[in-house]
């Protein structure tokens, strides 16, 4: 297993050129509840590569959300290493983590988390404003990505005047607009009906392919996970199996 995860292992070219973007080594997260220790994560190792669509799948309480939080630098691991884009983030201070997210990470939330006082364009442009980008430039970028997710007509709608599916599209555009190295999605379709779920999932897949983005999606739904390139099954804080999916029906999914 380790030899596969080293960069050399990737460039040795088992399939095609694979650049590792996330490397996790021996990751533990232990919560203390009274006297007893609860292992939310009990030693996790894996590598994710650039351009991959990965799904972290597991039942509730399996530690999948904890894992995502630590990958995104929202929680600190008890021990172990997380290397993202060749940067160790496990020992970063909070303001360094914020800067790290600002520069390298896009986020898609289950409950969309758009700012109610802003319209679609402003919401998408918001993370760019944190970088100090001038309004005109960031709004231009925001419009480009809103078109990409198919919201040409809803650009100036306020966030709470849109349907769930539309809001999540704005959320996707917001994650893409910062041109991140990785996009994290935490149950992105959890609040949507099954039809919209499919639309959103297909949209994410298409965009990840087109933009050569890396997407890490957390879900409890095995069926949704099957749309990913690789599924990381996690049970009781341990990776139980990694499943590669070859999608011969790619065309059908995307159209």
């Amino acid at each position, binding site marked *: 297993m380790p030899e596969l995860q080293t960069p050399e292992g990737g460039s040795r070219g088992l399939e095609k050129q694979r650049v590792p973007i996330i490397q996790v080594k021996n990751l533990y997260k232990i919560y203390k509840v009274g006297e007893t220790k609860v292992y939310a994560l009990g030693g996790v190792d894996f590598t994710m590569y650039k351009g991959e669509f990965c799904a972290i799948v597991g039942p509730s309480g399996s530690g999948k959300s904890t894992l995502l939080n630590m990958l995104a630098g*929202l929680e600190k691991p008890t021990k172990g290493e997380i290397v993202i884009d060749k940067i160790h983030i496990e020992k970063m201070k909070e303001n360094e983590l914020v800067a790290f997210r600002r520069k390298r990470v896009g*986020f898609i939330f289950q409950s969309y*988390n758009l700012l109610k006082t802003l319209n679609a364009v402003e919401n998408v442009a918001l993370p760019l404003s944190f970088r100090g980008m001038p309004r005109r430039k960031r709004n231009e970028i925001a419009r480009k990505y809103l078109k990409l997710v198919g919201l040409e007509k809803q650009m100036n709608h306020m966030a709470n005047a849109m349907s769930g599916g539309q809001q999540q599209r704005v959320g996707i555009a917001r994650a893409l607009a910062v041109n991140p190295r990785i996009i994290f999605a*935490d149950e992105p379709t959890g609040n949507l009906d099954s039809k919209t779920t499919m639309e959103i999932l297909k949209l994410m897949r298409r965009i990840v392919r087109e933009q050569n983005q890396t997407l890490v999606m957390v879900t409890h739904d095995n069926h949704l996970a099957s749309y990913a390139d690789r599924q990381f099954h996690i049970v009781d804080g341990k990776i139980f199996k990694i499943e590669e999916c070859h999608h011969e029906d790619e065309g059908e999914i995307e159209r």
Partner: protein
Amino acid sequence: MRFLDLLTMSVNNLRRRKLRTALTVLGVIIGVASVVIMVSLGIGLNALMLEQYASYGDMTTISVYSDSYYGRPSDDTEPNFLTDEVMKQFQRIDHVEGVSPMLSTYVIMKQGVYETSMSITGVSREYLEKIPLAQGKAPEEGDEMKLIYGNWIIQRFYNSKTGEGYWETGELPDIDYMNKPMFVIFDTSAYYQSQGGGENQVKPPKKYMIDAAGVVEGGVDDYNSYAYSVYTDIEALKTQLKQIYKKNPIPDQPTNKKGKPYPYFIYEQAVVFVDDMSNVMDVQQTLIDMGYQANSQMQWIEQSQQTFDVIQLVLGGIGAISLFVAAIGIANTMMMSIYERTKEIGVIKVLGCDMGNIRNMFLIESGFIGFMGGVAGLAISYTVSYVMNNYLGIGQIMMGVEGDISRIPLWLSASAVVFAILVGMVAGFFPSLRAMKLSPLAAIRNE
């Protein structure tokens, strides 16, 4: 993040909850208005007092006397008379703009049937030029002796035939300083002796016709510090006195231990002009240290000013309490706002908003509340101040003087707004730290 973006976000957040923002701002308005009005009253009272003193006399002059002049027995020390030599010393003191000796001589004046006896005070030309005149002008240098009459002097003339004057008849004597001749008798003792009759009949002294140079402005009832005196150029007066008395001793001039007059003039009083009000007390102390009696309007003002400082402090303190309550209101509003926006703050933190930016966003918000309250409070202060000054006449009631009781100088309005912003930011400081430290996890926790 750019400042403009921060400002926009903050203002948007305030606009989102208009009623709550308005109520918080109202608190600041009341606080700022009460501080500004209270301080403006303090300033107004102080200024009215200064104006009142200023109407009694010049604020930058110090009167200097010498004990020796009044014949205090001083056996071992040399008498420290006010002489020309001493005037030069005074002139050399820092902040002294000018010095005027004062020399009085008692005379009898006559015009037609009217006569009176009074002092003529010789002062420097500099002093003469400060006297506001209704008619005429100050005498030129080198002129012969000319008189400037105070506006109350006319009351002192009485009809020598009936013995009645203004106080008895209630009518002003028919005296024309400028156009009719005024006769002045300097040697009054000789005059009274000549009037007395009897055995020691003396030849009446010579009468001199002295022209008027001017009359002090103001009516017979308008008080000013020049109203009750007759002034003349001191050099002309000295020349005149020397001419009259020749070798004889001049009355009212002190004599040495042997009873002989000094070979120079000794002044009973001197006036020192100081460049600025703030230096008066220093100069006065210097004069006292030189061994003279000195007093000025400023010493009274200084005492009153201390009283008014205390009043102002108390007034300002009352206002400050309401501003303090407003600050608590701001802090409370900001805390509430943060509780409501926990998720939102978490989201922008996940999306990479710098912690400093989050703190600044809340500081700007609370500072903006302070700013709005400050500006509106100031507008109210100006209105209240205007009403107090123009419709209520409180100045008249409290101080008995015409004038504005409430004054808002520019520095007060500027500092009120700045202070309101500061109060807002201080009140918002701890809430903003709290917002900054909120966990981003709260945002992605699904409910």
